[in-house]
């Protein structure tokens, strides 16, 4: 917790010195989808925190697992208690960097395709992930959209044997972030 606050405060303070280089949000959207014969599951978290440095390409996204909202209460309870164990592992953090930053012209409006690589920590496990990311530049504002696939077993998320063949072992995660310059 203190590390997250210190990191972000450092970035905020550093950002005020070079305001146009750093972008930030506290309202990032993270949606996950799981499609399977037994049931389709999707949940939305609209309070992910993210910082992005357009000079170095460094990016960080943090989210509270309990802030994922489901359409059905029972699914939300199972997600928190049986699968993700959010009392024990309340946060998920991605730290990485844009690999091909030169492809993105942040001074010119348009859509740019790049890729992001880094480490995703969730449920007490940390794994390397790489995913495509689309940057949309519009009038100085930056939007980043990315989609990655996660195998539940990589993060030691266990599916009860009774429903093992009926629940998807793979989860699709969509991240949609509207960044604001840090000096705003």
């Amino acid at each position: 917790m203190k590390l997250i606050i210190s990191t972000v405060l450092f970035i905020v303070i550093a950002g005020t010195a070079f305001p146009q280089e750093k972008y930030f949000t506290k309202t990032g959207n993270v949606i996950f989808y799981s499609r399977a014969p037994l049931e389709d599951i999707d949940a939305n978290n609209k309070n992910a925190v993210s910082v992005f440095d357009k000079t170095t390409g460094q990016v960080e996204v943090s989210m509270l697992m309990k802030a994922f909202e489901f359409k059905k209460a029972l699914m939300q309870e199972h997600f928190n208690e049986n699968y993700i164990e959010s009392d024990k592992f309340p946060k998920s953090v991605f730290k990485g960097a844009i690999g091909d930053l030169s492809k993105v012209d942040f001074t010119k409006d348009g859509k740019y395709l790049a890729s992001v690589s880094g480490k995703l920590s969730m449920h007490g496990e940390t794994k390397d992930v790489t995913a495509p990311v689309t940057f949309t530049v519009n009038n100085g504002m930056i939007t980043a959209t990315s989609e990655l696939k996660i195998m539940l077993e990589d993060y030691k998320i266990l599916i009860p044997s009774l429903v093992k063949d009926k629940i998807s072992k793979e989860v699709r995660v969509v991240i949609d972030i509207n960044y604001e310059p840090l000096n705003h």
Partner: protein
Amino acid sequence: MHKSSRSVAGSTMVLLIIKTIEMKKWEISVALITILLGTVLGYAWEEYHRKPADTKYLPEQEKIEAMTLVKEFTTDETTANRLYNDKVVSVKGTVLKIENNGDVRDIVLGNETSPQGVICEFQAKHKKEADKIRPGQQITVKGVCTGMLLDVVLVRCVLE
């Protein structure tokens, strides 16, 4: 002869009564099982399709000032998580900022001197009441606490 025909009729009658009682038992059993099964299936169906409760109708479990809640989380996050997460918390504070985030509204309670505050996420069905809130206003919000990143985050919020 007369005596034996009487005894046959009597035996037949006794058999019929036993059969009727047995039939009724069987019918009663079927009816009871049907009712029981129906109740169990009905409960399972209801439970499976249950939507997350509207906080408006949930009683508050904790009542606290916004900046006190922030202080509790920054001082000892583990204890604060145990005390407040998943609970319906009533939080009083000054509105610092209002953000439109798609179909939800984020009302930030806090003060200018602290980089941290309480983010109260109002969902679509309570968007109208959130739209009446203005920066600087003193309000009390009821929501479900989910923990802290930079700010303490409350979801499914309603105005009290």
